[in-house]
């Protein structure tokens, strides 16, 4: 047996997880597409329910896009850990002696690439349909890029807690949405400020701070919750 240096070993493992997740995601592309379609469908409801006039829609567009993105991200959380817990992959991770927080973090990051990033890309299109001016695109995409990262990490804690619960999806929403509300407030506020031509650095900085905090702490909460769920 050749002794593998620990540093390289960890990076290799992260790489292996990323590769596995990417392969799985490409094979189950419908699971990526569904939350995205949901995002578009939900935003379509608002013009039908409120008013088709763009000048009216414009005022609520930042909030609508953000709420829809939040719900779509919530919807995709169901598939974050459940399949791997059901077929025992995560149990093997927990037994492997490798740091479980890191493994779960890499899984969440890949999940974000398929659940969060498409929303970020799609949002300007949806926003334009609701009357958001093109000048808001960078802020909308930027706030969603930071925000969906927070949503994936916070949602990961909730998903790990509820993965062993039967019919956990309503419970998951109940647990995760209150925790995610600050993210929604800052995100929608940034877009709203940008639309009125004001400085957006404040809420964006706060979003970035929340993201860093989540990146630092959420993996440990996730792993503690996962150990309880799979025992």
């Amino acid at each position, binding site marked *: 047996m050749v002794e593998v240096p620990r540093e390289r070993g960890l990076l290799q493992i992260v790489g292996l997880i990323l590769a596995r997740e990417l392969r799985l995601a490409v094979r189950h592309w419908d699971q990526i597409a569904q939350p995205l379609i949901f995002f578009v469908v939900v935003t379509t409801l608002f013009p039908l329910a409120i008013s088709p006039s763009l000048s009216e829609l414009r005022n609520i567009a930042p909030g609508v896009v953000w709420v829809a993105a939040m719900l779509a991200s919530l919807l995709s959380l169901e598939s974050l850990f459940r399949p791997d817990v059901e077929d025992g992959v995560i149990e093997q991770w927990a037994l492997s002696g490798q740091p479980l927080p890191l493994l779960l973090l890499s899984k969440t990051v890949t999940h974000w690439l398929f659940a969060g990033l498409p929303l970020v890309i799609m949002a300007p299109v949806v926003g334009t349909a609701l009357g958001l001016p093109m000048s808001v695109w960078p802020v909308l995409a930027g706030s969603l890029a930071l925000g969906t990262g927070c949503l994936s990490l916070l949602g990961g*804690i909730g998903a790990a*807690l*509820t993965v*062993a*619960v039967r019919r*956990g999806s309503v*419970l998951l929403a*109940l*647990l995760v*949405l*209150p*925790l995610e*509300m*600050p993210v929604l407030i800052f995100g929608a506020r940034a877009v709203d400020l940008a639309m009125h031509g004001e400085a957006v650095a404040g809420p964006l900085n706060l979003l970035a701070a929340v993201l860093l905090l989540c990146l630092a702490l959420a993996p440990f*909460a996730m792993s*503690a*919750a996962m150990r*309880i*769920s799979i*025992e």
Partner: protein
Amino acid sequence: MWLWFYKLASPPYAYAVAAKLRPWLLWSAVILMAIAAYGGLVMAPMDYQQKDAFRIIYVHVPTATLSLTVYIVLAVSAGIGLIWRIKLAHAVAAACAPIGAWFTVLALATGSIWGKPMWGTWWEWDPRLTSELIQLFLYLGYMALRSSFDDTQRADRASAILAIVGVVNVPVVKYSVVWWNSLHQGPSISLTRESTITGSMLWPLLLMLLAFMLYFAAVLCDRIRAEILKRERNASWLNAAVETTAARA
């Protein structure tokens, strides 16, 4: 030094202690509440801006303070239970949740009744109010997660993690009136600065706060006993304890 702590962590001992403490806590709470109510509703002068409407402060501030304090008690006991694996600490956390949720509901309700004459609206999407509402959702989520496990030990530990994560909301509620330009008035009482509320209005408020804390402790004793009854229902000491109380009655 830690002996009392270990002793208290044993369910039979805690069950007995809670039963002994309860009447003392409850009666002192009732007496203090009566004095504070007289002081606040009769003796304290009228507010020059808010007239008599300000007197709801004597219910609103204690309930709002407790909605946060109870959550801290909940999260700390959940943390103790998670780290040192003390079953009783989990029982305390479980007992705190419904009490805290009710205090939050009361804080929101009394605030809303106060808001109607003062702000002209029952509800305002203001940072303080919104974050207090989120606090209520956290309590509800905590209880929902707890009830979704059949196994008590797993419910204990899973909900403990949620409780600890939820602590981030407590400072947000507490400082929301300082951080954001809020419709809700700023704090009038402070430990470090001189309070902006006059003495004859202040002492009933502080007394009422103390009375509510004692009341919380009394209700907590009851609920802890109920939790212990539920969790230790198969233990022999419990049957003996219940029989002696039944014999005495």
